[in-house]
């Protein structure tokens, strides 16, 4: 499989203090190799989303260690955390999080904006990414003019356009029907393979979880199962 891309050791995340303290993550340890695809499964409130926030450095862990390519991520200042997301990370959200006032292409361009890619090149890369997700004719449509499945494809194009090392997806097909889910997920996985990104995605759907090479099962802020599928 290759060298570990990321490595979590005994990570905890506690909200509040004293008697009211609540541990969203309670000693989580695992490693993910480069190009690995991991499904994070478990009931709501089991810590999956908190884990994504920690992995993306949107949130900071309370104790333990998070190494990304051997670097300690808990020591980064806010600016470096932003740079980490900008250069190495891609996101797919359950509710797409496309900006309604922008066209599909403009939405896809957004990560490139912060990479300071100039306008013409942004447009070219966005069109290319939209082409890959099968929306070549819909670049100048706004999200409201697209179906749910098409919107999530736009979101996937946005996650891939900057060719990130790691893609984090929070129930990427949670808002889609079963048929659409399957199709979008297959597309997502195949494009991810082409880009060579590592993918961690949260899902409730066993069927979708089975599409990953590995499932991490969460319960009460702990990893209770690690199955290579």
């Amino acid at each position: 499989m290759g060298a570990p891309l990321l490595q979590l050791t005994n990570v905890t995340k506690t909200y509040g203090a004293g008697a009211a303290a609540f541990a969203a993550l309670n000693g989580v340890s695992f490693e993910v190799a480069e190009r690995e695809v991991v499904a994070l499964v478990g009931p709501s409130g089991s810590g999956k989303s908190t884990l994504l926030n920690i992995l993306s450095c949107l949130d900071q862990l309370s104790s333990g260690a998070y190494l990304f390519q051997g670097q300690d991520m808990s020591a980064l200042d806010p600016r470096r955390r932003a740079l980490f997301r900008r250069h190495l990370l891609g996101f797919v959200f359950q509710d797409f999080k496309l900006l309604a006032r922008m066209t599909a292409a403009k939405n896809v361009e957004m990560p490139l904006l912060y990479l300071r890619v100039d306008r013409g090149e942004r447009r070219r890369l966005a069109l290319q990414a939209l082409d890959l997700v099968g929306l070549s004719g819909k670049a100048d449509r706004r999200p409201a003019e697209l179906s749910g499945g098409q919107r999530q494809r736009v979101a996937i194009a946005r996650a891939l356009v900057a060719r990130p090392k790691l893609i984090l997806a929070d129930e990427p097909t949670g808002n889609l029907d079963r048929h659409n889910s399957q199709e979008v997920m297959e597309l997502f996985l195949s494009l991810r393979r082409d880009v060579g990104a590592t993918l961690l995605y949260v899902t409730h759907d066993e069927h979708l979880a089975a599409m990953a090479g590995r499932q991490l099962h969460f319960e009460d802020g702990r990893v209770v199962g690690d199955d290579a599928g």
Partner: protein
Amino acid sequence: MPDRTLLLEAIRTSVEQIRAAPGRSFLTMLGVLIGTAAILAVAAIGDGAANKVALDIQALGPNLVTVTPGTDQRSGRGGPAPAFTPWDVADMRRAIRSARALSAAVERPIIASSNAAQADTTITGIDPSYFFVRHRHATYSPGFDDTVMASTQPACILGDTVARKLFGDTEPLRRTIRVGRQSCMVMGLLDVRGRTTIAEDQDDLILAPLAFVQQQIAGSRGISTIYLSATNHAAIAEIRWFLRARRGLRPGVHDDFKIEDSKDILRDAARISDTVNLFIVMVGAISLVVGGIGISNIMLVAAAERVEEIGLRQALGAEQGDILSQFVIEALIICGAGWALGAVAGALVSWLFCSLAGFPLHIGVTLICGSLVFALLIGLIFGYWPARRASSLDPIEALRHP
């Protein structure tokens, strides 16, 4: 500072935002618009008035010094002071070294009439040097020139206003008019000057030979005004010392005459407009500040509406500074647009006012740039705090926002 890519994007986003809600954007700009328009118009109109004053001074003769008998209101003596005599004038002409030329005049209010009409005006008895000292000139009936004013002839020169009142559109030259109980013939027409800044009609007068006015109208040889064309600033002091000695004023006694230069005459007008200017500029500045508060408000609303977007941008790798600058740029663009509309409105108002008042219109580059800088400064000051708030949102909270 954001680099060019982000700067352009922020500008595009701002323009999109403004276009998405044009009504709201316009209301937001209104404060800045009104403030800019007010300041611009006041400055331009004030400038126009100042230029008009300068032109008036130029027209009066920049070196004109006017000497009239009379005590100052503050002086203890009160009462009318003796007029100047022809001997005063003759001696002054010799004694005052800083006067290039000197002209004696006697002025009386008078009813003038032609066969057709009547005019309530003034008649001024003058000598030929009047034209040089006062920077005026007359067009004469053939065979006449300025020297007629050295004679005792019943000849007169009409100012344009009087000529129109008495003769309408018919030719006044060589016609006879009555001034008081005397008759005199119109031998010339005075050049047209219009009104001064203080609305004094410079064409509402009749000029006649000094001796004629003294003998036939005033009934005395007194001189009511001495005009001098000064060569330097010492003139006023020189005239003052001469007249004090001449009139036997002991030290401690106030002058019983008044010396004014052309700037004094128009200074009051300028002073009034300064007060008004200051007031309107203050109103303009207050309006800009109120406009700034409006901008603060709308930026807070804009940030609240876009919480999710801010979270998303943070997730995609925007730094705090990127978000901050985006919102500051939006505030700057709103202010800039408000300024542009305000500048157009201010220019229109200035143009309208100046053409009505007869002021020369001039809107300087300094004024344009200064008001722009001021408007942008307002945007920066009032846009910063909401931008700061937007940029320090917790990304997780922001992303959870519906």
